[in-house]
């Protein structure tokens, strides 16, 4: 058979296949056809949602800094916690403690870190909640929670001499949420004093890191304490320390009773776990989707083959080869799984949207599930895999039924 003849045969076969699939879906066996599509769509849709949540988790960074080496945290909290609840244990007298640590030869710098959700609003009105992170600035302490600290005056002037700087650094996510730009004034209400405090956007982090999309506002520790009431006991949730001396760890553990000291190595291991978890979630979801989807397609196409055995026998009788008959079934199955994949991706995107709406109305202001383009592509790939995995079963079925001698029986 020449190449031209081969392609004529393939195109003709595809025409017959699409026609058969269309008529089956609309007229002769719509229930069975749409059941197959629905099975694949459900599996792919759920996988897209789980993967979207996994990606969402992965892109919402934890609050730790790349340029510190030790984290002192209350015993009940983990050093890598993304968000510290307001009611969680806090350290007291953190400013003098940090100052003492910074004064130690073996320590480059130390800074308390206070994290609190606050409501910021611009002069245009419309407040938004962001995660405020208060620190004591230091020239070498350049970023916290994937957000730069550039623009903050070192040393926490308000604590030292009562000078209110009003400096705030916004992450790209926070700037976008507030529609705020550098130099713009933002206001936060002081629940304790019943008054407002003004800040000026010192810097907007352009957002080169994964966590920059999260709405974060970095400010002077004492100013955040003043807003949230943490100034009474000079509170903070963590103390970060930069040091290359491994002997520092034991000393840090003695500063506060019932505290934990996390090292960079330990946190890196935790970070690896945090990064691998979404991947593991996605892989697990994909495997489950493939298994369920393939079993579904195998079952429904098996029913179709059984119902079509007379037609398959007719094709064999008039001289249509088994390879062509398999090609017909394969293209019909792949068409159905492709449609299932498309519907599944749309369902998944809807599910992600719904998940974010529910999450935003209950426990967070950000998005917990992400609709990255690769998630959509992933859905289509999985539907293709489901179709391909069902093909060997079709080949086995075809060797058992629809043989020429069955025609007319």
């Amino acid at each position, binding site marked *: 058979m020449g190449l031209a003849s081969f392609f004529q045969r393939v195109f003709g076969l595809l025409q017959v296949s699409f026609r058969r699939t269309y008529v*089956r879906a609309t007229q002769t066996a719509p229930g069975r056809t749409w059941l197959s599509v629905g099975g694949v769509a459900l599996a792919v849709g759920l996988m897209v949602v789980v993967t979207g949540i996994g990606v969402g988790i992965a892109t919402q960074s934890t609050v730790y800094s790349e340029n510190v080496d030790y984290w002192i945290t209350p015993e009940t909290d983990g050093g890598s916690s993304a968000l510290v609840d307001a009611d969680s244990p806090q350290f007291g007298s953190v400013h003098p403690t940090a100052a003492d640590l910074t004064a130690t030869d073996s320590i480059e710098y130390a800074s308390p870190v206070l994290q609190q959700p606050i409501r910021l609003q611009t002069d245009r009105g419309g407040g938004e909640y962001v995660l405020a992170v208060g620190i004591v600035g230091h020239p070498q302490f350049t970023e916290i929670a994937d957000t730069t600290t550039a623009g903050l005056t070192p040393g926490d002037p308000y604590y030292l001499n009562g000078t209110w700087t009003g400096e705030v650094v916004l992450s790209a996510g926070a700037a976008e949420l507030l529609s705020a730009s550098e130099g713009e004034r933002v206001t936060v209400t002081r629940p304790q004093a019943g008054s407002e405090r003004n800040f000026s956007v010192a810097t907007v982090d352009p957002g080169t890191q994964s966590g920059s999309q999260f709405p974060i506002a970095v400010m002077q520790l004492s100013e955040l304490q003043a807003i949230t009431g943490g100034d009474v006991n000079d509170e903070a949730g963590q103390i970060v320390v930069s040091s290359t001396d491994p002997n520092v760890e034991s000393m840090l553990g003695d500063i506060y009773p019932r505290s934990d000291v996390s090292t960079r190595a330990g946190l890196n291991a935790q970070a690896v776990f945090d990064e691998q978890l979404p991947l593991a979630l996605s892989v697990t979801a994909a495997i489950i989707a493939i298994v369920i989807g393939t079993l579904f397609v195998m079952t429904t196409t098996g029913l179709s083959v059984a119902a079509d055995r007379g037609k398959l026998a*007719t*094709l064999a009788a*008039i*001289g*249509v080869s088994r390879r062509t008959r398999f090609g017909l079934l394969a293209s019909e199955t792949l068409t159905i799984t492709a449609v299932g994949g498309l519907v599944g991706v749309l369902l998944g995107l809807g599910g992600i949207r719904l998940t974010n709406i529910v999450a935003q109305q209950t426990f967070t202001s950000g998005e917990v599930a992400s609709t990255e383009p690769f998630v959509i592509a992933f859905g289509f790939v999985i539907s293709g895999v489901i179709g391909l995995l069902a093909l060997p079963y079709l080949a086995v079925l075809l060797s*058992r039924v629809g043989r020429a*001698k069955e025609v007319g029986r």
Partner: protein
Amino acid sequence: MTRSPIINCVNLSRSYGRGGSRNRWFGSDNTETPTVTALSNVDLQIERGEIIGCAGPSGSGKSTLLHLLAGLDTPTTGSVSFDGTDLSSLSDRARTRHRLDHVGIVFQHFHLLESLSARANVALPLVELGRPKGERRKRATELLEAMGLGDRVTHRPTQLSGGEQQRVAIARALVTEPDLVIADEPTGELDTETGEHVLKRFREVATELDAAVVIASHDEPTLAIADRLVRMRDGRIEDIEVLSGSDGPHDDSPAQQSAQTNQGR
């Protein structure tokens, strides 16, 4: 001049099993225990250009014989040779290709694909042959017009009457210009006039394509077109009659000799 037969059946028998061992994976019959004999010791030779009628009551073995001649099934014993090639010696794939290249089959119940139009049904064997789309459409349309279905080419089988479906099935059998046409009750659903038209078409195929045509029917007027009439009963050939006025093979042909042999059984 004596020509070699296109079909040569020698001591042909076909038995069907009941029970037997079962495949442990799929539960289907794996081997067959012969219990029902559908065809027994049939010798028959058919020449090119000849129309053979096949008559007999239900269960006489007509359909089994047609299936074996078409290469749809293989005999339990004996052989069917097509142009000197024993069909039993061919693989399943080769027999499928043989049917595509050489055999046109009209099934009693038409067996059209309901999802395809009349034209697509007729053109289906040409798809397998890799013919261009334009040629497929042209050839299928011509045949349907010849069958009086020029205005029904885009209709699906469910939109056609029984007679129209039968003519579509006949057109599909003829579309590849086969060497052998097997037709099981080809006029069963046709009125007299249309039936005569179809039979005339079979004669044209036999003459113009030099093809052998085998027609099984209960209808005597349909069988009257045959050059020879094979009468069957209980799986055996009871009688082969050379019909008067036929322009078929010579009386001293192997087919006639075979008929005489069978008459003695």
